[in-house]
């Protein structure tokens, strides 16, 4: 059981250091997080972007990057293409977004010839360290899938479970979130939740314990669940919260960060390599922790 994000470091300590390629690396925020992670031995960076800007940013932050591999390409799209191709040709195990729009990066990731498609759905996975909860809690999907249907929810759960297994959480407890814990025909999220629970019971979704619908309070508090008389293996001990849609997910994400002062690491799953795709509003610490999370969940390359 993990209580703090920094414990992820111990997971990657025994593995070879992974290579991270930063696409359009001439970006102050992402580059400084990558350079700090590099200094701490978490990743080996490959920087694709405008070499002069990269060197200036590094110098301004007091980093010596003379040993690092830099591929000069000042055109953003071309730099992203190079970075994605490095990831798809297994020269790097993690892809990270630099000074480039998310849509441009994803277009390259999804390129049919040289992208990072695996046939799986791409989904966003966020891992929170909240002081008031007894362990790390994952939340999905708060950023990629707008209104996932049942099949997409299954894919999102599978992506996330795979990721949690790599973090050493053997049989994660998944709460399918609703506004209420009762099944209500007028609330489609509660119907999907019932289906996902049953599919889990029938081994159609494996490697986890799913219960839902659960309201947020009974998902994270055993006392709340008891008040409502809910018998559930998941209630109060959730490892993963599945959001009904992006609106709920995004608001929860931001309220945890802003009101609960939670720390968060996030990564895009479902591509051939994990993708670090933090937004400009994420703190430098969040970017650093996301790189660490990506390093923990990326596959070892031969």
């Amino acid at each position, binding site marked *: 059981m993990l209580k703090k994000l920094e414990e992820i470091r111990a997971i990657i300590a025994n593995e070879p250091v992974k290579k991270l390629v930063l696409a359009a690396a001439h970006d102050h925020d992402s580059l400084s997080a990558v350079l700090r992670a590099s200094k701490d031995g978490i990743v080996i960076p490959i920087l694709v972007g405008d070499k002069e800007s990269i060197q200036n940013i590094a110098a301004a932050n007091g980093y010596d990057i003379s040993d690092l591999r830099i591929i000069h390409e000042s055109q953003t799209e071309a730099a992203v293409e190079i970075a994605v191709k490095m990831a798809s040709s297994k020269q790097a195990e993690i892809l990270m977004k630099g000074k480039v729009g998310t849509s441009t990066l994803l277009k390259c990731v999804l390129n049919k010839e040289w992208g990072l498609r695996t046939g799986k759905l791409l989904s966003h996975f966020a891992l929170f360290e909240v002081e008031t909860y007894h362990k790390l809690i994952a939340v999905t999907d708060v950023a990629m899938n707008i209104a996932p249907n*049942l*099949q997409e929810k299954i894919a999102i759960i599978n992506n996330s479970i795979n990721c949690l297994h790599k973090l050493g959480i053997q049989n994660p407890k998944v709460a399918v979130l609703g506004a209420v*814990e*009762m*099944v209500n*025909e007028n609330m489609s999220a509660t*119907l999907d*939740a*019932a*289906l996902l*629970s*049953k*599919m889990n*019971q*029938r081994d*159609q979704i494996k490697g986890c314990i799913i219960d839902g*619908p659960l309201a947020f309070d009974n998902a994270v508090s055993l006392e709340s669940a008891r008040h409502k*008389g*809910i*018998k559930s293996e998941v209630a109060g001990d959730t490892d993963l919260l599945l959001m009904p849609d992006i609106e709920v997910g995004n608001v929860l994400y931001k309220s945890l960060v802003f009101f609960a002062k939670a720390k968060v690491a996030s990564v895009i799953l479902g591509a051939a390599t994990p993708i670090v795709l933090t937004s400009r509003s994420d703190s430098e610490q969040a970017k650093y922790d996301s790189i660490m999370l990506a390093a923990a969940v990326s596959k070892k390359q031969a």
Partner: protein
Amino acid sequence: MIRTLDQMVEKVLLSGKKHRLAISWAQDNNTIGAVGKAVINGLAEAFLLGKKNEIIKVCHSQSIDPALFTIIGSESESTASAEAVSMVKRGDADIVMKGLVSTDKFLKAVMDKENGIMIPGAVLSYVCAIEMPSYHKLLFITDPAVIPFPDLDQKIAMAEYAIEMANCFGIEKPKVALIGASEKISRHFENSIHYSVMCKMAERGQIKNCIMDGPLDIFLACERKTMEIKGINTPVNGDADILLFPSIESCNPFYKGLMLFANGELAGLIRGTSSPVIVMSRSEKQKSKYYCIALACLMAGNK
């Protein structure tokens, strides 16, 4: 817990209550035979509605004394049905039973908005208790007769009716198997989706007093061995009390198959009405009709 239909009859007899039957268009051999037996055995009192002369003729042909009954003259199937239903509505009878009248005409009287006996807003459905030598207890099935393709709400109502009936048989928490062709969930099988939702509702106490699982095939529902072979964990545990079918076309041949090939015997009732309503096909055996009367008495006594 009642395990056979004869035990059910015993239970009603032991209660000492005599329920009053109103039979619509009663001039039918099997019906009068069954009702006569019920009256003679002390299960019930009976009002026979129909053509007086014909009723008396049928009684004589069955060697039953017409004086056992109160015979009420009636000129048509429809008026006999309407009158039988209003007797129950007025409190002059406890149970209404279909005689020689067609089911359509009979149910029209039962469901009449002003004079009928439907519970407002309730789903009309049918539950059967089946006894057969090859199963260790009674098996309740629904719906072999009324709802062709039940939607989710109708399935929930069907389950609740069957659970309520099983409760009257002393089965406190019946095991309800929601029957499908396979135990897997697939969006191509709408029933498997309904069933998943119902299981969760049972888990959350929205459907009460039962242990529910589905989709299950009949083997998994009724045979523990299959469960072990397939390696599937289900709380129904090969010991189902209730089988809920996805359609009439699956449930009806199932029960008829049991009657024909498995020496099955049955008692069934319409549900959704404020008083018990007995509807049996005219071809049904006298013995089945007798069991239906006993079942109606049991349910009337548990109202």
